[in-house]
C-alpha cells in the first residue's frame, strides 16, 4: 500500500495541472483566502466604523475621501467590509462543509459497511432529510433560533450548525455507495482475517480508499454553502449585522441601487468569483481523479 499511493497521487496532480481553468480556480481561491486572512493587516480600517468627517447620509463613491471602493449607505468603508465579509463567508463555508462531510461520511460509512436494517434505516432517514426543501426549512429554523436567543454573536455557529446539519445527505449517499463495493474487496477481507475490529476496518482500511470522491463532493459543496449562507444573510436570517457578510452587505443595497450601485456590485462579484472558481476547481478535480466520469 505504502508505495502504491504516491504514483497515483502524482498522476492526479499531473492531470490536474494540465487543466488551466481548474488551476486558475485554485489560484483565485488561494488569493481570496489571503485576502480574508491578511486583508486587515494590509488595509487596517475598521469595517464597522462610520466615516464621520465625509459621510453625509449617502454612500460615498469609490475613490472618494480615501475609500478605494467607496462606502456603503451608512458610511462604512466598503473594502474593509468586504475583507470582514470574506472572513465570515469563507469560514462559515469551511466549517459547514467539514461538519457536513463528517456527518455524511460517518453515516454513509456505517450504512454501507453494515448493510441490512442499519443501512435501511439510515438511508430512509437520509431520504427524509433530502426530501424537505432546504431553503424554506433553513429559513424557519434560523428564524426560530434567532427569536429564542437574540445574541448576534451566536448566529455564526447557528448558521454553520444548521447548514452542516441539513446538507449531509449527498455525502452520505456517496460514501455509502463506495463502501458497498469496497467492503467486498480482498483487502477488507484480509484486514478482517488478521483480526481487525470494525472501526479499524472502516477508518484505516476502507475510508482512505473512498477519499477521492469525498474530496470532490466537499469542494463543490463549499460553493453551495457560500451561496446558501449569502442567501440567508441577504434575507436577514443569516449572519446578523453589524457583523459584515457578503450576503447581508447586499441586503440594504437594493433600496439605494439607483444612487449607489457599487454597494451592490462589489459583494456580489466576490460571491460570484469565489463560487465560480470553486465549481471549476471541483470539476477539474473530478476529471483528474476519475477521467472516465465525464
Amino acid at each position, binding site marked *: 500500500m505504502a508505495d502504491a499511493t504516491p504514483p497515483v497521487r502524482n498522476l492526479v496532480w499531473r492531470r490536474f495541472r494540465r487543466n488551466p481553468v481548474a488551476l486558475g480556480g485554485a489560484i483565485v481561491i488561494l488569493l481570496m483566502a489571503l485576502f480574508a486572512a491578511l486583508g486587515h493587516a494590509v488595509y487596517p480600517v475598521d469595517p464597522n466604523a462610520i466615516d464621520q468627517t465625509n459621510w453625509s447620509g449617502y454612500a460615498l463613491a469609490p475613490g472618494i475621501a480615501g475609500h478605494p471602493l467607496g462606502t456603503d449607505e451608512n458610511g462604512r468603508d466598503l473594502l474593509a467590509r468586504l475583507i470582514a465579509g470574506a472572513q465570515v463567508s469563507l469560514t462559515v463555508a469551511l466549517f459547514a462543509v467539514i461538519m457536513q462531510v463528517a456527518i455524511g461520511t460517518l453515516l454513509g460509512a456505517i450504512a454501507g459497511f453494515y448493510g441490512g436494517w442499519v443501512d435501511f434505516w439510515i438511508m430512509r432517514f437520509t*431520504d*427524509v432529510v433530502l*426530501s*424537505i*426543501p432546504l*431553503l*424554506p*426549512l433553513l*429559513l*424557519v*429554523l434560523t*428564524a*426560530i433560533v434567532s*427569536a*429564542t436567543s437574540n445574541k448576534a454573536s451566536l448566529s455564526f455557529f447557528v448558521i454553520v450548525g444548521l447548514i452542516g446539519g441539513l446538507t449531509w445527505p449527498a455525502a452520505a449517499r456517496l460514501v455509502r455507495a463506495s463502501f458497498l463495493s469496497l467492503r467486498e474487496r480482498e483487502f477488507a477481507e484480509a484486514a478482517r482475517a488478521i483480526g481487525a475490529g470494525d472501526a479499524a476496518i472502516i477508518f484505516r482500511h476502507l475510508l482512505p480508499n473512498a477519499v477521492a470522491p469525498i474530496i470532490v463532493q466537499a469542494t463543490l459543496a463549499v*460553493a453551495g454553502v457560500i*451561496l446558501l449562507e*449569502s*442567501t440567508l444573510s*441577504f*434575507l436577514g*436570517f443569516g449572519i446578523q449585522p453589524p457583523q459584515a457578510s457578503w*450576503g447581508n452587505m*447586499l441586503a440594504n*443595497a*437594493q433600496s439605494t*441601487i*439607483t444612487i449607489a*450601485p457599487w454597494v*451592490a*456590485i462589489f*459583494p*456580489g462579484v466576490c*460571491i*460570484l468569483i469565489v*463560487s*465560480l472558481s*470553486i*465549481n*471549476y476547481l471541483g*470539476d477539474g478535480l473530478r476529471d483528474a481523479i476519475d477521467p472516465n466520469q*465525464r
Partner: protein
Amino acid sequence: MILFGVLSQAPGGPLTPYLQNPHITEADIARLKHNLGLDQPVPIQYLHWLGNVVRGDFGYSTSNSESTIDAILERMPATLELMGTAIGLALILGVIFGIVSAIKQYTWVDYVITTLAFFGQSMPVFWFALMLQLLFSVNGFTGFGYHIALPSAGISSGDTFDLGDRLEHLILPASVLALIYLAGFSRYMRSSMLEVIHSDYIRTASAKGLSRFVVVMKHGVRNALIPLVTIVGLTVPDIVGGAVVTETIFAWPGMGRLFINALGQFDFAVLMGIMCLAALFVVLGNLLADMCYAWLDPRVKYS
C-alpha cells in the same frame, strides 16, 4: 413521508412573540394562549393540528386571521405563473443546449454553453436579480438602437388585466429563475447525452444509414431524457418555496413572499400550511417523474 416532513417541523409551535404592546396584559396573553391552544404541551398541539388538517382545516393566520388555505390559494396563481414560465423556459432551452453541447463536444459552442452553465450555477440569485434591475429597469437599457425599460416590481401595473403589461412584469423575475435552472438542466442533459451518443445502439442506428439528425433525435434524445426527468422531478417542490428570494426582490405577490412575511411574524399556521404543500409537491414530483419514466422507456412497468 409527508408525516415525517411535518413532524420535523412541529416542535417550533409555542413561539408566538406576541407584540411587546404595552396595552396587552399578562392576562390577555394567557387568554390568547389558551384560545390558540398554546398552553398545551407540544405533542398535544401537534396531534390537534394534525387532526384538523386531516379534516381539511389548516387553521387561521395569527397575524390577520385569514384562513391559511385562502391565503395560500390567493397567492398560488402568481407563483405558478412565475415558476411555470421559468421552469418551462429552462427545460426547453436546457434540453436544446444540452443536446447541441454534447453533439458539438469540445467546440466553441460547447465551451460557450458550459461556461454559461457554470455561471448560472455559481450566481447568487439575489445578486443577479439586483443586477438585472439595475441594468434594465432603474435607468432602462439603451443600446443597439433600442431603449428598454422593464418594470422591476409587482405582477401588474393596474387592476385591469393587460397581457402585454403582465408579460413585461414577468420578464425579469422569470429570466432570473430560468437561468439558474437552465444551468443545472443543460449540464445534466449534456452529460447524459454524451453517455448515450457513445453507446452501441446509437452506433447501430448510424450504421443502418440513418441521417445524423434522425439518429440523435429519435434514438438519442429519448434515452438521454431519462436522467433529466429525475432532476426535474426534484425541482417540482421548488415551485412552493424555491422562489422565495426572487419573489422577495421583485415584490412578486406569490407564495414565496407569503412565506417570508409569515416568517417575520411567526405566523405558524401559514408556515405549516406552506411546508405541507411543499411536502405534497415532493410526492407529486416523484410521482410525475415515475410516470415520465414509463412514458420515455416502455420497458419500465409498474405493476
